[in-house]
C-alpha cells in the first residue's frame, strides 16, 4: 500500500475517537483524540497491525501570559509504517494530567511512559513501573525538567538545589 493509502487506513481506524486530523507533511498524519480515548485509539492501530510504536513525545504548553488558560501537556504517540508517521495526540491540563497506560497493549511502552511521567509530570494509571528511568533517585519530587517553568538549578551545586527547585 502506498503512503496515501496507509494514511487513509489510519484515519479510518481512528475515526470513532477523532477530534481533529492534520496533515503537517506529505508522509505524516496527526490525529487528535481526548485523553479518555487514547487507549482505544492505540488498541485500534495495534489490532489492525497498522505499524509499530516508535516514540512518545511530550510537549509542554505553559499557561498563557494573561492566566486565562491553564497549562497543558500534550503527548504524541508516534507509530511508523514504511515512510508514514502517524501521531496520535492528546492533551491533558496541569490540574488533571492523567493518561491511561497503554502497556497492556504494548508492553514495551513502559520505558516511554516512565520518561513522560518524570519529565512532564503526567500521571499514568496502570503503568507497570513508576521507577525513575533517566532522572536520579534523589531528584526532587514534583520537579519536571521538561516543563518550560523549570529553568535549572542555577549556579548552585546540585546537592544544594533540592530545597530551591523550580
Amino acid at each position: 500500500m502506498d503512503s496515501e493509502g496507509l494514511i487513509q487506513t489510519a484515519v479510518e481506524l481512528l475515526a470513532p475517537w477523532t477530534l481533529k486530523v492534520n496533515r503537517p507533511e506529505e508522509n505524516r498524519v496527526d490525529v487528535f483524540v481526548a485523553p479518555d480515548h487514547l487507549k482505544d485509539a492505540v488498541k485500534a492501530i495495534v489490532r489492525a497491525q497498522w505499524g509499530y510504536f516508535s516514540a512518545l513525545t511530550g510537549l509542554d504548553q505553559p499557561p498563557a501570559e494573561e492566566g486565562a488558560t491553564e497549562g497543558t501537556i500534550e503527548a504524541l504517540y508516534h507509530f511508523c509504517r514504511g515512510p508514514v508517521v502517524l501521531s496520535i495526540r492528546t492533551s491533558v491540563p496541569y490540574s488533571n494530567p492523567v493518561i491511561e497506560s497503554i502497556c497492556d497493549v504494548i508492553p514495551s511502552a513502559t520505558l516511554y511512559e516512565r520518561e513522560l511521567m518524570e519529565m512532564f509530570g503526567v500521571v499514568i494509571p496502570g503503568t507497570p513501573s513508576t521507577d525513575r528511568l533517566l532522572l536520579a533517585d534523589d531528584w526532587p519530587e514534583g520537579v519536571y525538567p521538561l516543563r518550560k517553568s523549570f529553568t535549572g538549578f542555577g549556579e548552585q551545586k546540585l546537592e544544594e538545589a533540592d530545597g530551591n527547585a523550580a
Partner: protein
Amino acid sequence: MEFSPDTPWQKVLDSVRRWARINSPWAIHYNSGSCNGCDIEILATLTPRYDLERFGVKLQGSPRHADILICTGPVTRQSRERLLRIYEQMPDPKFVVAVGSCGLSGGAFRGCYNIVGDISEVVPVDVFIPGCPPRPEAIIFGVVKLLESLKKGKAEVAAFSEGVHA
C-alpha cells in the same frame, strides 16, 4: 604511529618504561556520564596500535587496588555518588586523570541541568586531558605525565618516611 628512536617523545617513553617496570600502576576507569567518545578512545589505548600496557599501566576493575582513577564525563547527578565512593575506596597515594572536555568544564553540556561539569568539583584532579575526545596518543601523553609525577610523589613520601624514622 611510528616513532624514530631519538625523538624527545621517544626519550620520555623510554624513561617511563624503565620506571614502570619497577612500579606498575594499576588504573581504574570510570564513566561519570560521558557520551562514550572518550571511553572508546581510552579503550583504544589498550589495543595493539597504541598499547598503553607496555608502560606497565594495568587497567583493572577494583578501586581498592588502584593507584589511578581515569575518569570521563561531566558527572551526572546519578553518577556523582558512585564517583565519590570509588575515590574513597582507593588507597593513598591516589591520582585522578580527567579525560575529555566534559570533565574539564562540562564541555558541550555546560549549563545542562543534570551535570556538575568539572570533575574537580567532586574529586581532586591531577591531570586534565582536554579534547572532544582526546586522541589515544593524547591520553597516553597525559597518563605518562602523571606517571612521572607519581614517581616523584612516591620518592618524596619515601624520603619523608626515612627522615621520620631515622
